[in-house]
């Protein structure tokens, strides 16, 4: 399972970076989305995967009896997902406005403010 997830993370990163290197702004955004999914999945994988063991301590015990899933990475991912959702929503509006104002989605045309 770890291997499978690791390959998925690698695939997401590769696809994300490939998309970001395209000229279209829309693809840039898709690439960013894939990149943040890759990072989230990386935390999930790196945090350790345990099947079907919820992190609940039985009544009367003071510590878990068996190996349990670590809940912290999942809390981190949840936070990260919320943040990346908000940021991507903003970025979508941004590229829409840019397209409206400048009439292009080609990054090579968006160089007036560069040096």
């Amino acid at each position, binding site marked *: 399972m*770890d291997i499978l997830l*690791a390959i998925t993370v690698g695939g997401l990163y590769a696809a994300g970076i490939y998309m*970001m290197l395209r000229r279209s*702004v829309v693809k*840039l955004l898709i690439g*960013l989305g894939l*990149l*943040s999914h*890759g*990072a*989230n999945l*990386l*935390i999930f*994988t*790196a*945090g*350790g995967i*345990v099947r079907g063991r919820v*992190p609940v*301590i039985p009544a009367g015990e*003071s*510590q*878990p009896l*068996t*190996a*349990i899933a*670590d809940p*912290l*990475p999942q809390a*981190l991912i949840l*936070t*990260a997902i919320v*943040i990346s959702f*908000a*940021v991507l929503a*903003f*970025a979508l509006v*941004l*590229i829409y*406005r*840019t397209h409206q*104002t*400048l009439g292009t989605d080609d*990054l090579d045309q*968006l*160089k*007036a*403010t*560069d*040096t």
Partner: protein
Amino acid sequence: MNTQVAVILPIAIPLASMAISLLAWKSVAAQKVIGVVSSSLLLLSAAVLMWLVNREDILVLQVGSWPAPFGITLVADRLSSIMVMLAGLVMFAVSIYSLVTIDDRRVDYGFFPLIQLLLMGVCGAFLTGDLFNLYVWFEVMLIASFVLLTLGGERGQLEGAIKYVALNLMSSAAFLAAIGVIYAATGTLNMADLAVKLRSFPDEGIVSVLAMLFLIAFGTKAAVFPLFFWLPASYHTPPVAVSAIFAGLLTKVGVYSLIRAFTLLFITDLQFTHNLLLLIAGLTMVTGVLGAMAQSEIRRILSFHIVSQIGYMLMGLALFTPLALAGSVFYIIHHIVVKTNLFLIGGVAERRFGSGRLAAVGGLHQSMPLLATLFFLSAMSLAGVPPLSGFFAKLTLIRGGLEAESYAIVVAALVVSLLTLFSMTKIWAEAFWKPAPPNEASITVGSGSQFRRIALFGPVVALVAITVGIGLLAGPVITLSTATAEQLLDPDAYIEAVLPDRHVTESEPIPRDSVFDRTPAMHHASAVNRHSALDEYQQ
């Protein structure tokens, strides 16, 4: 009242004032009043925090009384308190300057609540003692800066924003990945706890990988070579008040994080990490200043100088001696004040001529002698002419470099400072000495009511006074910087302050519940450890 409360005030004040401003959405006047009041309160709370830290060295607030490393820890050491103080200062200056320079449309769309949100993110990043919390503050700051950058929706703003957003989001993804890997390797995200665990971490390769991931993540925010391209593409596009607050604070959050990471966490392999930092510092200085020389618009020149000066701040960190690090701290203090001010002055010139292109401006030494004097002082300070603040900052850094016998970086620093002088002279000659361009319908700035003049020039005069003051009273500032550097080079004090109960971490071997070598039993052991430690606390 508990002194620890002072640590959270610089976060709580902007948050509260943002909320109140949002309630007063319809009333521009109310938002302006709230903005000024809250930034004065922020400045006050920062001063109190600095005073307390000066007395007690390190203030720690365990949020919700969860003991570190389980809860979120807020830590104010000397560096944090200096940074918060500077943030308060910049915020105060900019919030007064923006009273008259931000147009009504931008105010209607929430300019004032947004700068409060930005400041909350900045102060949070300076004060947190937890890596994931640092990520969250970065994002708070980023989302506010995204909106501030694009507010108004002009062509240039949108174009610059695409690069700014894309590259900053990439660095956030790198930061997030680094957090994932560091948690997998050590089982903690509390910085003090991490410092303990990384010190005895068996696999040096993984620590180096982590150091590089954080270097990329923080380096992009700090705009170091070769990750700085978002900065000169975007910083000259928004209104001047926004540019000034970005220029003063945002990259410095990256620099602060780099200093924190490379004085506290990654200090086991100095040969590798800090030599790399030194190389980056040199290249950042040189490329930044060369970029600036090629520009012919006031704010674009100043933007490239930000990049160049980030190099100086990293130089002290990379040399890693008390003197050099003190130089870095001094440089940050000097840079934030002067750079914000130069943007504000450039903004006044831009308002007058409706453009920041050097070809379109001129004759300011005759028409606005006060502005010319203020610019001259700031620009000379930036270039490092004695007796202004920049001179002492650079002197300390260069003495640090000579002491460490890194002559290449010293030569680079001196040459770059000469080139800085050159490009400041360029702005001076073009904008101030050259006769005003003919048939240019120049708008008179600062005329009209007395209030407008004060709001426009007051912050600039105050910041110039601080620059001159730092230069004339360099002794106390050097003492403060040296104390800060010594504190940074002694991570044990930081760890001791955050984790007074070291037995939790010391008795426990490094939990290896990671992908690097994981067996279910080990994972279990570490989870149990965490639970039993929590349990112990609760009883």
